[in-house]
């Protein structure tokens, strides 16, 4: 019988080596790179985490998650407001932010989940816009249009490199947990629901409830990403909840490959790097992004990572080999 649990020793060791090398590199960044690049790397991690959490609902769950930025933004505001307005330990911000985001995810999920596809997405956009409008207008509490600057993050992570390390560790843990969830039965069922909700119902799966859970998990990790942004940048602003950011996150997922686990992180890295690079030459970054998107939609609908996997797939390979290759890639880049 097929033992899906093990892979050949040679590829496993090679992947493990790459993984270790990548991790070492990531940890060495602050010592070799100037501060600006360390900051950029932290931003990549934050957006990558947010995009990965989005992809849990979108790519793996098949939900039309059109306004994910709300949870990201609410997580950030939750953390920032706690640090600014209460005398509690600022470390609590990193707990409260995600919790508030998760709560919002649960509430919005309960409201939206009875609808399907486009209607789900549109209702989420309306609810999200409502939240945005509240944050935007509540000047006395959230700083309104100005946002909040100079949030007092814990001293330990106030330096650029320490903030980076903190972000790196939290992101790695979060990615690991999400990966675990997707590899577990819940993940299989979720993908089954994505591909065939009717069939899933007929094998005894309560589709709505599983989708709701996926939504809640996705909003939790988005909240984590949001609070990490506060750690890195010490600011929050209403645009973090605006629908254009949600679209950008979707772009990251698509660009990297929304059927893969590491795709969104890759997409985030590409987008952030490109934006930084392009912005030094021209102010028309949106134009460049739009054109890139069109190219991706037409020629690379599976995303960069998806395309690479397809390349390595070739003809006639069985899923076992392909599955190994896919798992290799996702583990190797972790």
């Amino acid at each position, binding site marked *: 019988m097929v033992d899906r649990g093990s892979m050949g020793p040679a590829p496993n060791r090679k992947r493990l080596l790459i993984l270790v090398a990548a991790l070492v590199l990531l940890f060495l960044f602050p010592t070799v790179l100037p501060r600006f690049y360390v900051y950029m790397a932290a931003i990549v991690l934050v957006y990558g985490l947010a995009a990965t959490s989005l992809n849990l609902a979108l790519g793996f769950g098949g939900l*039309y998650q*059109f306004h994910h930025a709300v949870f990201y933004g609410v997580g950030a505001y939750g953390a920032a407001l706690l640090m600014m307005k209460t005398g509690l330990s600022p470390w609590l911000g990193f707990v409260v932010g995600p919790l508030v985001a998760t709560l919002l995810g649960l509430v919005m999920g309960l*409201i939206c989940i*009875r*609808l399907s*596809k*486009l*209607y789900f997405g*549109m*209702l989420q*956009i*309306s*609810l999200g*816009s*409502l939240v945005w*409008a*509240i944050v935007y*207008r*509540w*000047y006395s509490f959230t700083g309104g249009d100005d946002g909040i600057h100079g949030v007092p993050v814990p001293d330990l992570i106030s330096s650029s490199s320490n903030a980076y390390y903190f972000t790196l560790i939290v992101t790695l843990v979060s990615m690991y947990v999400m990966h675990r969830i997707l590899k577990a039965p819940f993940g299989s069922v979720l993908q089954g629901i994505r591909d065939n909700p009717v069939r899933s119902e007929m094998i005894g799966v309560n589709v709505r409830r599983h989708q709701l859970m996926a939504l809640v998990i996705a909003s939790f990790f988005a909240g984590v990403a949001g609070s990490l942004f506060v750690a890195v940048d010490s600011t929050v602003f209403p645009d973090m909840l*605006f*629908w*254009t950011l949600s*679209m950008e996150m*979707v*772009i990251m997922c*698509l660009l990297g490959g929304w059927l893969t686990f590491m795709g969104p992180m890759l997409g985030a890295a590409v987008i952030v790097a490109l934006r930084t690079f392009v912005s030094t030459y021209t*102010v*028309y*970054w*949106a*134009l460049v*992004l*739009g*054109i890139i*998107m*069109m190219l991706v*939609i*037409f020629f690379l*609908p599976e995303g960069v990572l998806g395309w690479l996997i397809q390349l390595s797939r070739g003809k006639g390979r069985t899923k076992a080999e392909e599955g190994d290759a896919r798992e290799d890639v996702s583990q190797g880049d972790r």
Partner: protein
Amino acid sequence: MGLSRTVILFIVSSGLSLILGVLRIPNVAHGSLYMIGAFMAFTISKATGGGSLGFWLALVGAPLGVALVSLICERGMFQYLYEREHLMLLLLTFAFSLVFGDLVKLVWGGEYKSVPVPAVFQGFVPLFGGLPFPIYNLFLLIVGPVVAVLLWFLVNGTRIGKIARAAAVDREMVGAVGINVSWVFASIFVIGCLLAGLGGALVAPTVSVTLGMDHTLIIEAFLIVIMGGLGNVWGALLGALIFGLTQSLGILVWPQFGIIFPYAAVIVVLLFRPTGLLRSTW
């Protein structure tokens, strides 16, 4: 004030409703086309000296200009993607909105532009109890229903409208009967975008024409369309009315958070009638 915005919203939303209802494209670029319409109106008006002639020329020229742009996009790109999933179409139109946004910045620059109200519509008319009502708004109040009726006639009365509605449901069947579905879709798309341009041209004299006018509008347009029922012209009208009314009411009653009211209204409607208030084509 709220009423004029309502009319504009209706015109733009009806175009979006058409595209979404018949072609199943969530056209995020609709807001950008509206903005382009406004900017084109500015240019035409400025080029003809800013007088009344300029206004009428702009009213005709800007929507046509936008229609041309949309035709190019449709023939060049969209027509190959009708079979793709909604997410891809949505992202493609979002890409267009990004491109258009920056193109506008490139061509027209970032400062506020203004379009003068034509002389014949300037001034106010005293209305119930002496409240001054801008004549231009009266003009809009006439244009709105006219557009609604024309559109309704187009969709329900003309051959093209009937074909489009049939094709929305079963494209293959319609094609098999020998009709060039591709051109029907193109026409519907262009008409929808023309409406966005018209909305932009109409709004230009009443607000400052700026970058970013697309962003808030597109959300409102989408919500109106969903609230009213996809593909339903009267639905767009109803939705726009509800939206405009709740917004005005909200700002009156609770100035700080009044803008929440329309969003809340949409949520309430969607909870009870998920496919919209009136019949949708989906």
